[in-house]
């Protein structure tokens, strides 16, 4: 753990130094309004880039959240294998994966996974 902390500090230092070096090394620099404006094929930016979020992406994220929690619940069955009774372990994991699969098919059936309606 201590070693990992030291190594992480080393990695953080290395990457910060690389970024800092590139800022120092880039001598030739000037800035004007046209150059610093956001890239939009040479025109002034037409609309603000802080647009609201698309609902599709939000729904995908919600589905992802469900499945990620389920994955987080699946992982302990590896460690539980050596701690619990084998039959109970196999029953629990079978039922859990069946429920997951049924949930996926239910979502598919309800057209939650469709990208366009």
């Amino acid at each position, binding site marked *: 753990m201590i070693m990992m902390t030291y190594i992480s500090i080393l990695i953080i230092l290395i990457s910060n130094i690389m970024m800092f070096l590139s*800022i120092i*090394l880039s001598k030739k620099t000037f800035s004007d309004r046209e150059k610093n404006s956001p890239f939009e094929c040479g025109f002034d930016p037409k609309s603000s880039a802080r647009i609201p979020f698309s609902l599709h992406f939000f729904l995908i994220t919600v589905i992802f959240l469900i499945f990620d929690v389920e994955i987080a619940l699946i992982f302990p069955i590896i460690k539980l294998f050596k701690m619990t009774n084998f039959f109970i372990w196999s029953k629990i994991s079978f039922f859990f994966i069946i429920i997951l699969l049924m949930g996926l098919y239910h979502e598919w059936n309800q057209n939650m996974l469709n990208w366009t309606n």
Partner: protein
Amino acid sequence: MMLKDMLMIFLGLIILILGVLIGVAFLTLLERKVLGYIQIRKGPNKVGFIGILQPFSDAIKLFTKEQTYPSFSNYLVYYFSPVVSFILSLMIWMLIPYYYNLISFNLGILFFLCCTSMGVYTVMVAGWSSNSNYSLLGGLRAVAQTISYEVSLALILMSSILMIMSFNMMKFMIYQNLIWFIIIMIPLSMCWFSSSLAETNRTPYDFAEGESELVSGFNIEYSSGGFALIFLAEYSSILFMSLLMVLIYMGGYELTLGFYLKISLISFLFIWVRGTLPRYRYDKLMYLAWKMYLPISLNYLFFYLGLKIMMFY
């Protein structure tokens, strides 16, 4: 004793980081060469001896380019997100399973999943903070894509973990002593390969930086150092994904030369795919993740659970 050990670990890690960086440099050279020969031209062949020194001159050129300060950008976040992505992709390399001188993780696979999920944030923040419409769209797409492929990636990983019943990456080489997992689970390994293509935003699925619609995607406002760091992070994650594929499916015994040859074979496959396949369509990509890979990996997980129970019983 303790101090000496720590010194040795530190030295090993510095050598590891240097090796990763040089490997990434030569991976870019390999990519340019292979793409050149795919398109019947020569690729870089002038700098140094037949183009060997090309990546280093590219790096020097890239780092001495001009650093821009986009107006209206959230500058601090804009500055630090490539740094953070580079940090994360170097941190993943701590996982490389060696017998001595590096860290041996008991829960290495969980660490890998944590690091890859953190990588999403840097792309999203880089896209959002540079205040351009193209980069915001690229960031959103990258987030949705990486998120949805992460689910299937974790589930595919899960069924090979069920075979070894441990999160330790060392165990893979013990259990694949007699037979590679790619022979036991061919469909899953193919799914793993294309999910890792999507996870690293490589070409058939590179919607984060699709040149034809989004100019350059989430990294459009980045110039010298930031772009170089994003680039390095992306390529080192490609290398790590190919390392993981070799480790999990192709008999990962990493003290032989063959291991490294297999890694370069898989990373050559990444480049080959880029040279041949056209870009996918975004909704089809989402369908591929949610309607193909997720059911396949769940069903196979069920199957391998049954296999495990049958073998154990």
